[in-house]
């Protein structure tokens, strides 16, 4: 009885997963349709397969330098990820392990700041970046992104779950805090750092408002803002929009497939320590 039920459950979950996946499959199929049949739901499989949408997107170099956007997105997302991981792990290490005076109060402040709607920061940030002469440079998208509190919050939670005995022992052995951080703490937190890294990468990759407001030149755009060019108000170039969407999503799916174990498994530790 129980076995049958479990089999049924397994089958059902597979169907559910397929359902969750189907919009993505539809997106890919539709992006390969010619414009005339693009919105026609009666033929989900294209009648005439075409690469025209992709050829158009990729070949449109002057006004839509797709490869440039792709490189921008990669450069910015990678830099942001590195800095966030570095800054957040250092801060979390100081709060939970070195018991920084006022550290817990600071953590509370960070969490409170996470509740402030992001739109609120936009104009002040713009003014600050303007003063720094960082507008229309990658710095505008990289440095402010390191201020987000999620990383510190999450890593602190994770570190609190690790027994301190190991690190106390290392300290007793004459380990400096720097050694402790590099040799003991980072390896112990590797799964949580991987999760944070991937979350940060995805969030930075998908950030829309930042590049939109802080970047002026077309060649400094990131991929999502580039896509927005296609979502025009007057024209319904659906095939092109979907083709760009697919191209913008592929790198994320690759990242996800490469790291999905880490992402999913260390989400455990984030949620579990309350």
């Amino acid at each position, binding site marked *: 009885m129980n076995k049958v039920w479990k089999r049924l459950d397994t089958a059902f979950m597979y169907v559910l997963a397929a359902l969750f996946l189907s919009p993505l499959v539809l997106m890919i199929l539709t992006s390969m349709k010619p414009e005339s049949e693009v919105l026609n*739901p009666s033929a989900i499989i294209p009648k005439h397969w075409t690469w025209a949408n992709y050829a158009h997107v990729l070949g449109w170099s002057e006004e839509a330098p797709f490869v440039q956007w792709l490189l921008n997105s990669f450069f910015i997302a990678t830099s942001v990820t590195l800095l966030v991981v570095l800054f957040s792990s250092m801060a979390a290490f100081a709060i939970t392990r070195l018991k920084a005076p006022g550290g817990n109060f600071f953590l509370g402040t960070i969490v409170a700041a996470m509740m402030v709607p992001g739109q609120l920061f936009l104009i002040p940030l713009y003014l600050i970046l303007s003063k720094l002469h960082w507008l229309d440079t990658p710095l505008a998208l990289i440095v402010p992104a390191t201020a987000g509190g999620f990383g510190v919050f999450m890593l602190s939670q994770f570190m609190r779950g690790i027994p301190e005995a190991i690190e106390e022992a290392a300290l007793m052995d004459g380990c400096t805090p720097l050694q402790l951080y590099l040799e003991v703490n980072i390896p112990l937190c590797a799964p949580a750092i991987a999760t944070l890294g991937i979350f940060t990468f995805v969030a930075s990759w998908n950030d829309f408002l930042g590049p939109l407001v802080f970047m002026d030149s077309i060649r400094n755009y990131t991929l999502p803002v580039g896509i927005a060019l296609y979502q025009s108000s007057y024209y319904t170039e659906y095939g092109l929009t979907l083709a760009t969407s697919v191209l913008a999503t592929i790198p994320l799916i690759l990242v996800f497939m490469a790291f999905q174990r880490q992402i*999913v498994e260390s989400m455990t530790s984030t949620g579990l320590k309350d």
Partner: protein
Amino acid sequence: MTYTRKRGMDAWLFMTPYTLSFAAFILVPVLVSLTLAFMQFDLTSRNSIQFVGTRNFSDALKDDYFWQALKATLFFVVLMVPCMITTGLAMAFGMNAMTRGRNTVRALLFLPGMLNVAVASILWGWFYNGEFGLFNYLLKGWGFAPKPWLSDRSWAMPSAVGMNLWWAVGGTSVVLLAALQQIPRSIFEAAVLDGAGNSALLNRISLPLLRPVMLFVVVTNTIAGFQVFGPTFLLTRGGPELSTRALVQYIYETAFNNYRLGYGAAMSWLLFAVVATFALVQYRFLKRSVA
């Protein structure tokens, strides 16, 4: 004594990079926007910029569109959070009981969350399209009447929640699944030996032990719900009849379409007050029931 003081100094050395970034790009912007909230600040008529005291706040409380946007936001939260928790929980139990392939299913359920919200909305906008969309095409094919997914005031918000569920439930269910897997088997075995039935196992063991995680999931989803912008804005532009115009969209339009930055900032702080209150109440409430 020297040992601890040195440790404290080391600690703040480690804190420095993040603290600087936090100060420059969170603290200062917060202070600036707090100042803006008490000003009449219109970018298009700079000679009319002036301090107006609490007028922006009192204007907001008298503004029908503010209340309506707050109501729409609350509706989204009230609809989305329970759906998210129950669906996420059901999916977590479903995955937990799987005999094989759990990791694959978990990955696939999580995958939509990787998508840009703009991409997700383009897709779902087509699914939901009233006359020419996929859903109504399927409904008609199965002999049902087409539904006004986005064009009716009572349908639009649930439709937006539906898309949001597809987009974000993966993360919630993965967290809950992880928590479920951490419950030691021995507890269940002991309970079964004591003659506990399935429902007793669920109500007496699984759910109470999941409480701390539930707290995390409920609070983060609530905060995210109050800040909703992308899903509703991109899907319906706030319509029909502004019924899905959430507060963040109204703030965005006020600040960036009408250039009334002061008023926008004041409404943002009101939103912050609401979110913080909700989060605090949930935290207290769930915390107590954990203990």
